[in-house]
């Protein structure tokens, strides 16, 4: 990249999130660090229970009852140490979120327009007429046809794709600097998914918004992310620029994920699954969380957890948490 390196918009260091449950302490996120710069998209990939959603929710105060340690510096302020009122001001204006299921994020008994204008008025001193004009503009911007009419519709009158667009309109209403999209297209058809991903890309180009794209779908990451963080059982397993990760994955878990996908030419052949299942996060076993499912596992993997490190020969931007890939004897 050319030009002076800009300071990251968000710096997360050693983030750990744990919950007390009747069965014991559940360690959802166990020491994750990443940076996010303006205009970039970070893809966080992981399966259910990997901690990918909890990690970002904990930063904006959406994980009630969690024990959170580490740092999340946004604009020089540590989000994890801010009082609730200040965090509330940051949610929406600084960091906005889009969730998987728009139907559960919108109130069924209020019109789409009312919900957007109320959100704007909660953060800015504008009249409801002014806010309504903005809401119509926003709906048009995200591709709702005839927004001046559809603004008065109730959520049930929108299709799934339109609801997700309305959620995006609401999320970008205050021109946030970071947009966290948590599985934004998982409930949608591929055709609508492709429309929504395009829309997010366009908004990013227009406004320079930084995006955190949380997904279980490697295809979505491949299509949207500049950088990728692969999470497994609460830990970062691999972190790399998109191209580098897809071309030469270093961690056996990432390799396994890529290999297990059905793709061109696999018809009539057996897929290569990752055997076994992810470990429990209540009293997780020591060592690398993936060791029980890893074909390359050595003694050391069962006793101590490898740090996220660049391999001896590779570039420093591509890091993986594996004892073997760190030694140049990469699997």
């Amino acid at each position, binding site marked *: 990249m050319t030009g002076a390196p800009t300071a990251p918009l968000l710096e997360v260091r050693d983030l750990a999130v744990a919950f007390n449950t009747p069965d014991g302490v559940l360690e959802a996120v166990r020491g994750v660090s990443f940076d996010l710069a303006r205009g970039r998209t970070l893809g966080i990939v992981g*399966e*259910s229970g990997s901690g990918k959603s909890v990690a970002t929710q904990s930063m904006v105060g959406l994980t009630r009852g969690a024990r959170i340690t580490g740092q999340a510096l946004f604009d020089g302020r540590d989000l994890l140490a801010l009082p609730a009122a200040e965090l509330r001001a940051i949610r929406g204006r600084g960091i906005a979120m889009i969730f998987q299921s728009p139907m559960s994020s919108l109130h069924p008994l209020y019109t789409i327009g009312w919900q957007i204008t109320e959100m704007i008025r909660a953060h800015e001193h504008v009249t409801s007429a002014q806010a309504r004009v903005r809401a119509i503009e926003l709906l048009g911007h995200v591709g709702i046809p005839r927004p001046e009419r559809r603004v008065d519709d109730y959520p049930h009158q929108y299709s799934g794709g339109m609801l997700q667009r309305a959620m995006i309109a609401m999320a970008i209403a205050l021109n946030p600097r970071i947009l966290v999209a948590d599985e934004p297209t998982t409930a949608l058809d591929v055709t609508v998914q492709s429309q929504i991903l395009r829309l997010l890309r366009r908004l990013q180009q227009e406004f320079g918004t930084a995006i955190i794209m949380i997904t279980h779908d490697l295809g979505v990451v*491949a299509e949207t992310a500049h950088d990728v963080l692969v999470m497994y059982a609460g830990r970062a397993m691999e972190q790399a620029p998109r191209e580098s990760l897809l071309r030469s994955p270093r961690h056996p878990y990432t390799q396994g994920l890529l290999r297990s996908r059905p793709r061109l030419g696999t018809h009539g052949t057996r*897929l290569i699954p990752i055997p076994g299942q992810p470990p429990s996060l209540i009293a997780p076993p020591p060592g690398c969380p993936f060791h029980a499912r890893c074909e390359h596992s050595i003694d050391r993997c069962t006793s101590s957890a490898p740090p996220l490190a660049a391999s001896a020969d590779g570039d420093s931007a591509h890091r993986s948490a594996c004892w073997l890939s760190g030694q140049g004897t990469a699997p």
Partner: protein
Amino acid sequence: MTADALIQLRDVVKEFPVQSRAAFGGRSERLQAVAGVSLELRRGETLGLVGESGCGKSTLARCVVRLLQPSTGQILFDGQDISTASHAELAPYRRRMQMIFQDPYGSLNPRRRVGSIIGDPFAIHDVGPAGERRRKVQDLMALVGLNPEHYNRFPSDFSGGQRQRIGIARAIALRPELVVCDEPVSALDVSIQAQILNLLDELQGELGLTYLFISHDLAVVRHVSDRVAVMYLGRIVEIAPSEALYEQARHPYTRALLSAVPVFDPDETRTNASVELTGDPPSPLDPPRGCRFHPRCPRAQSRCAAEEPQLIPRAGDGPEHTTACHFPLVEGETMAIGAAPRMTP
């Protein structure tokens, strides 16, 4: 029609009555979820069925196994017309066709032990002495990769992937000929999906099963299917051997659907550039005249609005590849991108 057809559908229509929202009159409307589908399933094959939500693919699947009765048209199972068969008349066919559902959490009774869930089909169809059932169930558990010693556990003791194995064990208990798989891996994590897809493949080989495989994941469908049918608004718009469909889609809708799949491999380039479908599918309550896809089709011409295209071989294709389009895509042709539909009134 070929000799080895296990299932034949002839012009199957399934309508549902809907309450009219109109303030006056309150005419009762009918929603045609499946609007005249003819196709066959051949013994031992996997037929993939794809389409957007609401296109009628699940309704069609439920008609095939007669969980629903078609409004008109015929369903032939092994040559016998079962489209209007009564509950009692269907009983002998129930053993021969089964279904695997998407949700491994919702489709198993949480209060019953796994052994008795899997053993249900034996009890319902009164197969073999009760004393032998336990052994049969444990054989089934081993067959689908579950530990037979877990016979007395509850569904909540199993992970999502294992629960799907329980659903599969129940479906194959009576050695059916046809298994309809409705999104069988959609709720599973990526690393587990491949395990289940391999299992389905092994069972097909061992038991000679015929699959109707529904999924919204086009990469999964391509992997498992011998042939693929594409549905849009209640109708089949294209059907072809799997590779032919993915390599040489004729119908603009098929092409658009395929190009919406995220390009994954950094070395794999998008051959068709991407064709964005704008808007949502029209309401099945008031489907467009002529070709149902024409209002969203970049290639549409006036004929498309007037005349419904037949599902027949196009552009020199053999009988295995049929397309319902007046202006099918030919070899190497790209679709106009972002072009507004050309419609002459």
